[in-house]
């Protein structure tokens, strides 16, 4: 899992049938210091996250399919948690 920040939402009318009704979020993976790391990712949302939230992002087909919960579907990324706090160090 990665820490990411929700930076946007995406609206798509014409899409794969298994994705009907799924909420799509644009999320930006973050490095440990909180800076943007790599390209933004389009993920399905299973926890009702919103723009600005720090979230847990999975980028794996099996994990995303479980998060969507509709059987085998064409998804490879999902938001699976909203982060309250991260503490680093001992």
């Amino acid at each position, binding site marked *: 899992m990665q820490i990411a920040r929700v930076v*946007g939402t995406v609206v798509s009318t014409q*899409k794969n049938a298994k994705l009907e009704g799924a909420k799509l979020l644009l999320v930006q993976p973050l490095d440990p210091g909180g800076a943007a790391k790599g390209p933004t*990712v389009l993920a399905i949302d299973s926890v009702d996250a919103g723009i600005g939230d720090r979230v847990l992002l999975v980028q794996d*087909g099996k994990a995303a399919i479980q998060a969507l919960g509709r059987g085998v579907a064409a998804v490879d990324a999902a938001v699976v948690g909203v982060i309250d706090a991260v503490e680093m160090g001992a």
Partner: protein
Amino acid sequence: MFLARVVGTVVATHKDPGLVGMKLLVIQPIKNDGSASGKTLVAVDSVGAGVTENVFYVRGREASVPFLPDEVPTDAAIVGIVDHWST
């Protein structure tokens, strides 16, 4: 999934039987602001996308899922056409 813009089409007569009848599109991954990001790639289309449209695509093993039970050997598939996005 990732955002991309369709920038071209690919015609290939001689190809794996699993790809016969599939529409192959050249897509350019894009950033939040719509500008190009990284290299173009070829993806199989599952939603009827066309050149200049903004789409989102799946990478990896799940890219073959939209075509089940057909077994399509691809590592990238377009699974949605983007109406609009906001950041």
